């Protein structure tokens, strides 16, 4: 209901975000001279661009003997969330070593800005503003160590707001047979925030989108049904895979015909019985008690399953 009238995003900012926007604590600069006085090395790292709507410049004074960040400051072009996130990120950097700082993520930053542990500090569509706080740390660390920024990223991140990797997404989609964006978001939180990773045309351009991953999986499934021999045969499948394969055939080829007559069916069990695969089913609705359910309809179901999956299938209604 709340989403029907909408509202202002500012209402969803935590008090901490509001306070930091009104009065950022770590805003400022460190000059070369100031760093030298601290016996530290000055690192200045930039991330983002005004033309993209968010930009941050991070200053670190790093003690070269201990790799500790002795002092940190920021300047930021952006909205309240960007400023508050930058401020919090700088606070989290202070006193840590460069290696420790690299481990700080945008999620740590967001959590640090919460008033109460279980209420998000910013509304979902503002989550991406905190991502740049994470990226700029990596950039600063790369500069300090004289290495490439890529060396800090161990895996490809598809949803930066929720930090969900490509490998996690691929795994979750396949394990749970996900077919919609909503399902992916429900399982992984990917796509719940700024929505850039869902499909092209969002706030940020990506290399790979959630729709691509769904399409990839869809294609894979299609290849499997089109050329069953090329993939795992019914006999080689695990019990769960067999159940899913049978469910899929029923969904695609059988259920509609039953539903049209006011009925339905469910699978109870699949058992290997000598050379046969016995699939136990139960009729629902109008099907139960229908004369054809043990003759014509049953043969039809069995024949379709035989044709699509394995010729040794037998269907046994209970």
């Amino acid at each position, binding site marked *: 209901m709340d989403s029907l009238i*909408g509202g*202002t995003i500012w209402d969803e900012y935590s008090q901490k975000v509001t306070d930091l926007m009104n009065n950022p604590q770590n805003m400022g600069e460190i*000059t070369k001279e100031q760093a030298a006085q601290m016996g530290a090395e000055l690192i*200045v790292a*930039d991330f983002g661009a*005004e033309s993209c*709507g968010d*930009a941050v410049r991070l200053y670190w004074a790093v003690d070269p003997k201990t790799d500790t960040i002795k002092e940190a400051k920021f300047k*930021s072009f952006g909205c309240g969330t960007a400023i508050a996130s930058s401020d919090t990120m700088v606070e989290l950097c202070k006193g840590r070593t460069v290696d420790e700082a690299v481990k700080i993520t945008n999620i740590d930053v967001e959590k640090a800005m919460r008033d109460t542990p279980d209420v998000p500090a910013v509304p979902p569509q503002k989550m991406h503003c905190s991502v740049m706080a994470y990226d700029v740390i990596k950039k600063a660390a790369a500069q300090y160590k004289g290495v490439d920024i890529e060396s800090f990223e161990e895996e490809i991140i598809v949803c930066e707001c929720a930090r969900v990797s490509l490998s996690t997404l691929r795994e979750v989609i396949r394990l749970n047979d996900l077919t919609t964006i909503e399902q992916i978001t429900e399982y992984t939180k990917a796509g719940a925030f700024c929505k850039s990773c869902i499909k092209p045309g969002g706030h940020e351009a990506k290399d790979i989108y959630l729709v691509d991953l769904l399409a990839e999986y869809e294609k894979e499934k299609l290849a499997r049904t089109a050329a069953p021999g090329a993939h795992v045969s019914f006999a080689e499948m695990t019990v769960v895979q067999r159940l899913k394969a049978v469910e899929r055939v029923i969904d695609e080829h059988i259920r509609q015909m039953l539903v049209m007559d006011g009925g339905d069916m469910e699978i109870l069990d699949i058992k290997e019985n000598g050379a046969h695969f016995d699939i136990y089913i139960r009729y629902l609705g109008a099907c139960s008690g229908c004369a054809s359910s043990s003759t014509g309809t049953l043969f039809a179901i069995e024949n379709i399953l035989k044709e699509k999956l394995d010729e040794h299938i037998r269907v046994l209604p209970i």
Partner: protein
Amino acid sequence: MRVYLDNNATTLVDPHVFAEMEPYFVQKYGNPNSLHSFASETHPGLKDAMEKIYAGIHAPKEDSVVITSCATESNNWVLKSIYFEYILTGRKNHIIVSEVEHPSVIATAKFIESMGCKVTYLPINHEGLVDPQTVRESITSKTALVSVMWANNETGAIFPVEEIGAICAEHNVLFHTDATQAIGKIPVDVQSFNVDYLTFSAHKFHGPKGVGGLYMKRGRELSPLLHGGSQMGGYRSGTLNVPGIVGMGKAMEQTIDALDFEMTEVRQMRDAFEDELLKIPDTFVVTPREKRTPNTLLISFRGIEGESMLWDLNRAGIGASTGSACASEDLESNPVMEAIGADADLAHTAVRFSLSRYTTQEELDYTIEVVKKAVERLRGISSSYAYAPEGHKSGLDTHH
């Protein structure tokens, strides 16, 4: 002090308008189409209101001004009915809109595009204006409709609707203009140039929300979008919004009476306000003021993200906007600024101040002080104005 400078989003209801509407809630609540005195006692008020609305846009009696629920409905109606009548039937295959139309035109155009209609999105030039020549170049023998707004909601840019209307007449193409941001700010006369359909909305000129209109020239009547009990001559079904119509009538009368004031006093106040703000270094305005509605100022403060500026303004009690209020949850840059494409750095820095005849000099003086302080504070935070050691290779697209 609270200052409202977001009159292109909505306006306060003129107290005279409210007074006129009031009897139609508790006393004269009848359905105008019923057969009893409860119905007929609403008729004089409705008739009077319709006359004021016709007079307000100088519509001839033979033409239809159909009352709708809002400008969004009116715009949807035009594009969708044209789609049903011309595109779906295969008589035509193309419409033309400007790329900076209100979302109710753009989103509808995208929708019918997805249903197979070709759509040309006209670009705007460096001043934020549509060049009529681009309309001429885009029209084909299969073009059904051109829809270009009269005045832009964000920049206040006044589009050359007279020239565009003439080009449409020449090529026998229907012409629709969304005059939502024009009425009450500049003269709007449907007989002074070629126009087939014209959209407007009461709450943009001190009338109530939830009531708008669509002017349709005689012979160009659209088939209905809302089917039902054949109210509004069958063009738009749904029980008449009696208080809304009465309110819009009164608001139209008041706003036409105040048009001279708007075009002189409000304009002068806006111009002086603009002059003061432009004294702040690195501050930019895109559309020249003589090509804008008298109440609107879209201004960019380099190095300050628009939402941050709104934040500081709001803390001081001032309501302004970064663009379209519909997109208040939108992360994107101002579409008009983006379309102008002059300087990408400025796309996220635009803030819109829109005045009304109720705006006072005192309010503007206060706002100028607040803006100056906000610019100082926010540029102090901004990476665009930040120190960098010699030889620092900036990854930022900064101040240049």
